[in-house]
């Protein structure tokens, strides 16, 4: 437990002293978190309903190459399996929208999503648009009894911990993406290849992607022809992704970082035609709408990973 606390303190950089009236604010923030978590369960219902159009595709498509959660489908006729999974996900999503307070219902919602997303990805290749939704629904199983109407401090604190774990999961996915790019960059440098820090990196990604898919993107061709202008975007993306998990421990930067990552997704679509709408929604839900204490530009600069140290020293000197 002590090491967990040490870890949190290390990642939070130099947290400011707690403001007066902290506990009163905590209660207000808690009420906000409860609303956001309810919205999460409505969004699961939205997934079920917005995928009605895909039912005919799933029924007409060839046999599944099942991932492990839908391995049981091998023992049943395909249509029975597909209808069972789609029906189960819809039913559990409906239950979740009304009875999200019950842990049993939240477990069912998780299972419904797990089965549905596993089936979507059982056609020989795994896509990743819905992974976070599945994993978040799993984490939310750990919400304490009475979380949505709690007045006890302990229940509020436990709810806040689960909420923060959800935030960490979202940001960890970006940090892993950044880590993969940086690690591979060092490997490619050692091989004498063009790497993620190279000015041509983004142009190469775009050219390759558009050739692969014969895609038409609004900004892609321009990015290929202006690799020097694309370079800062690539480096900013690396910075945003790599340190995303640290931001969970630095509230002053959360909205800014989430906004940056949403912009990253917007440009990913405009440049590479890659769309992650649910990630944008989750970033908005868990970071943009989340109630944060007021902050200042100086605080934000001081909290910046890597560069914050410089700003902290500068403000110490001026003080």
């Amino acid at each position, binding site marked *: 437990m002590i090491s967990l606390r040490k870890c949190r303190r290390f990642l939070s950089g130099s947290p400011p002293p707690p403001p007066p009236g902290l506990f009163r604010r905590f209660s207000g923030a808690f009420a906000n978190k409860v609303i956001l978590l309810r919205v999460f369960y409505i969004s699961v219902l939205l997934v079920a309903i917005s995928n009605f159009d895909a039912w005919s595709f799933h029924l007409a498509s060839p046999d599944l190459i099942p991932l492990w959660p839908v391995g049981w489908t091998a023992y049943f006729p395909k249509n029975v399996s597909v209808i069972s999974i789609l029906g189960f996900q819809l039913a559990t999503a409906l239950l979740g929208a009304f009875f999200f307070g019950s842990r049993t219902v939240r477990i069912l919602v998780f299972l419904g999503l797990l089965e549905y997303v596993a089936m979507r990805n059982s056609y020989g290749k795994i896509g990743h648009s819905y992974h976070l939704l599945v994993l978040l629904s799993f984490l939310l199983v750990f919400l304490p009894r009475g979380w949505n109407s709690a007045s006890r401090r302990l229940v509020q604190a436990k709810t806040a911990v689960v909420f923060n774990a959800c935030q960490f999961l979202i940001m960890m996915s970006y940090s892993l993406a950044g880590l993969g790019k940086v690690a591979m960059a060092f490997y490619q440098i050692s091989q004498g290849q063009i790497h993620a820090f190279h000015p041509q990196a983004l142009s*190469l990604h775009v050219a390759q992607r558009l050739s692969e898919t014969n895609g038409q993107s609004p900004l892609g061709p321009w990015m290929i022809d202006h690799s020097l202008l694309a370079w800062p975007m690539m480096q900013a993306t690396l910075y945003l992704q790599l340190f995303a998990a640290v931001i969970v421990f630095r509230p002053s930067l959360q909205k800014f970082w989430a906004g940056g990552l949403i912009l990253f997704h917007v440009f990913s679509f405009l440049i590479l035609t890659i769309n992650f709408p649910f990630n944008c929604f989750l970033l908005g839900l868990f970071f943009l709408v989340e109630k944060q204490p007021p902050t200042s530009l100086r605080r934000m600069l001081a909290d910046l990973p890597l560069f914050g140290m410089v700003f902290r020293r500068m403000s110490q000197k001026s003080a």
Partner: protein
Amino acid sequence: MRSYCRLKITLAGFFLAYLALALSGLLTQNKEIFPFYTWFLFAAVPNAGNHYEVVILKNKDQSFTPPLPYAQAANIAIFPQAITAYQFIQKMGRSHDKGDSREFAELARLFQRDFLIGPTTYQLLRIYYDPIERWRGKEAVPVVLKTIETTSATP
């Protein structure tokens, strides 16, 4: 208070397990133990090198001269512009170059089943190119690796 600490430790354990499973997943065929993904998307910058392509020669009664690239083959390809199709073709090409004929035959069967509509004759090509030069229209010389003719749902 003890339950609060237990919850924190459980959640920390979840994240450690996630990392362990995600990294172990890299050793599997799918590169992932669903749903624990490493998120190593676009990690490697594409350099000049070998790439694989499928071109359609014939579909049902219709012949194509010059051959039609898969990514442009609407009505023949199930997912013409999907990255999944591109990645599957790369897998087929690598399997062919490895000389694993059993794996290649299985991949070709799945390709016909999941990515093509109707009986099709197609070629698997290997092309060496630089992505940016290719985008700018520089022609790369393809090497035909295999011509595959399918008459029914599976080759």
